[in-house]
């Protein structure tokens, strides 16, 4: 790793759900101040990785350090203090449906600070201004489009000025315009606020276009890492299948089963 200063360090991480191994021996480093992308096919545990970093899940083995603190070993109190320094944007946005846009963004401020109402109002309006939704502050989440909802969730995630912000599939299901808005916003916020950003996504080109460093995970391990160029030029068949979206390759098109001949010739109709 070329960067010396890592905000998140994951060493020899192993995690399994039921009996299925999601990660086996994974090392990931998230450098401070940069945008790092974690990519991979669906179901490879990208979201799980974010939940591990946020301390919502406990790994089977290995260490996860955020800002020098070993996350799985923290007490509840220490973990909650650490989480105040993290922001996370969930795929669904996770907005509170019974609160307005304004109150959603104000929620972490009201919970964690003793600021006066006028101060909270100024802060919330500033955060909403950054994502371009100051005018939408009185709407309910149900009145927002998908892209707007994510931008509100983004404003809420940066309300406490975190050091680390994690995005879970920020681009999935977005039309080209809101995708463009989000792509630009993620990069701008990272640079303007001096954040450290982690993006988990399978939208390859959009993600690579704004990331300084990227990891590609599949089958519980890392199949590629590096800058956008070095990832694009990596000739590993697994990586190329993922980057180019080839239907068949190391990840087979057919779900494993009997051969077609055998299934067709089989007498037993229910087999």
């Amino acid at each position, binding site marked *: 790793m070329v960067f010396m200063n890592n905000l998140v360090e994951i060493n020899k991480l192993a995690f399994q759900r039921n009996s299925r191994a999601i990660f086996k021996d994974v090392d990931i480093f998230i450098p401070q101040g940069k945008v790092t992308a974690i990519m991979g096919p669906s179901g490879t545990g990208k979201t799980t990785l974010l939940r591990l970093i*946020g301390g*919502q899940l406990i790994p089977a083995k290995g260490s996860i350090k955020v800002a020098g603190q070993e996350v799985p070993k923290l007490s509840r109190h220490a973990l*909650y203090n650490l989480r105040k320094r993290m922001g996370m944007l969930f795929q669904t946005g*996770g907005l509170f449906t019974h609160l307005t846009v304004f109150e959603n963004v104000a929620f972490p401020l009201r*919970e964690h600070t003793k600021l006066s109402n006028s101060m909270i109002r100024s802060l919330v309006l500033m955060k909403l201004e950054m994502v371009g939704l100051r005018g939408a502050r009185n709407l309910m989440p149900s009145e927002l489009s998908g892209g707007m909802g994510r931008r509100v969730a983004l404003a809420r995630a940066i309300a406490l000025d975190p050091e680390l912000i994690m995005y879970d599939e920020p681009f999935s299901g977005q039309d080209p315009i809101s995708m463009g808005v989000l792509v630009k916003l993620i990069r701008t916020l990272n640079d303007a606020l001096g954040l450290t950003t982690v993006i988990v996504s399978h939208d390859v080109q959009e993600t690579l276009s704004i990331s300084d460093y990227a990891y590609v995970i599949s089958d519980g391990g890392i199949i590629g890492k590096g800058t956008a160029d070095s990832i694009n030029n990596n000739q590993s068949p697994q990586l190329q299948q993922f980057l180019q979206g080839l239907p068949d390759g190391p990840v087979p098109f057919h779900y494993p089963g009997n051969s077609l001949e055998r299934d067709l010739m089989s007498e037993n109709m229910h087999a």
Partner: protein
Amino acid sequence: MLNHVAELGQLGLDVLRKYGRAGILLYRAVFRVPNIRKGFPLVVQQIYAEGVLSLLIIVVSALFIGMVVALQGYHTLSKFGAAQQLGPLVALSVARELGPVVTALLFAGRAGSALAAEIGLMKATDQLSSMEMMAVDPLQRVIAPRFWGGFISMPLLAIIFNIVAIYGAYLVGVKWLGMDAGAFWSNMQSAVDFRLDILNGIYKSVVFGVVVTWIALYQGYDAVPTSAGIANATTRTVVYSSLAVLGLDFVLTAMMIGGW
């Protein structure tokens, strides 16, 4: 054969694990109370959502149940020339049994199912997770106020049920069937004991309040975060709470009957 035994064991373990998780949830909801300044408005909101919004169904049911009991009771009692005992009959059956039990069943259907669906939906849409990631404990912020809201609302609803049901009986017995109002009320007053009948009924409703709210919160919090999962959680809330209420009612009655 051995497989079946193993499956049975697994089933037993799963059930025990669920009870364990439900117990932990209750423990945290009770003991991780938010501070008064933040917690009080949240609890008041929940008393409104669970208690006040259940009032309509409780009041209407109570009125009709009181009227039906009076009608049936009058009919039967007058065969033995004991129609004057209608007041005690209605008051005792409502205060001891119908009040707490029917209120709890209605509460499970109205407020319990709403709680389970609301919390399941919050879970499915990552609202609980994002709250956790904002360093706000959902058990403290979401579960605890709802628990206390149910705990406080249920006995109040049961008291209102009792009052309205007895009034319904008065309407039928006195206003319609022409019983003497003085006999109706004075016989009732002399037959009903405040501690043994009224208070015991309220104790029951406190227990039912805890159990129904607990089941609803657990089912919502533990729901599979999909639309089918939420539907299941809502159904299970109503079924389990109703069974628990009826079963517990028997146990509580058996414990209280010594005094009657």
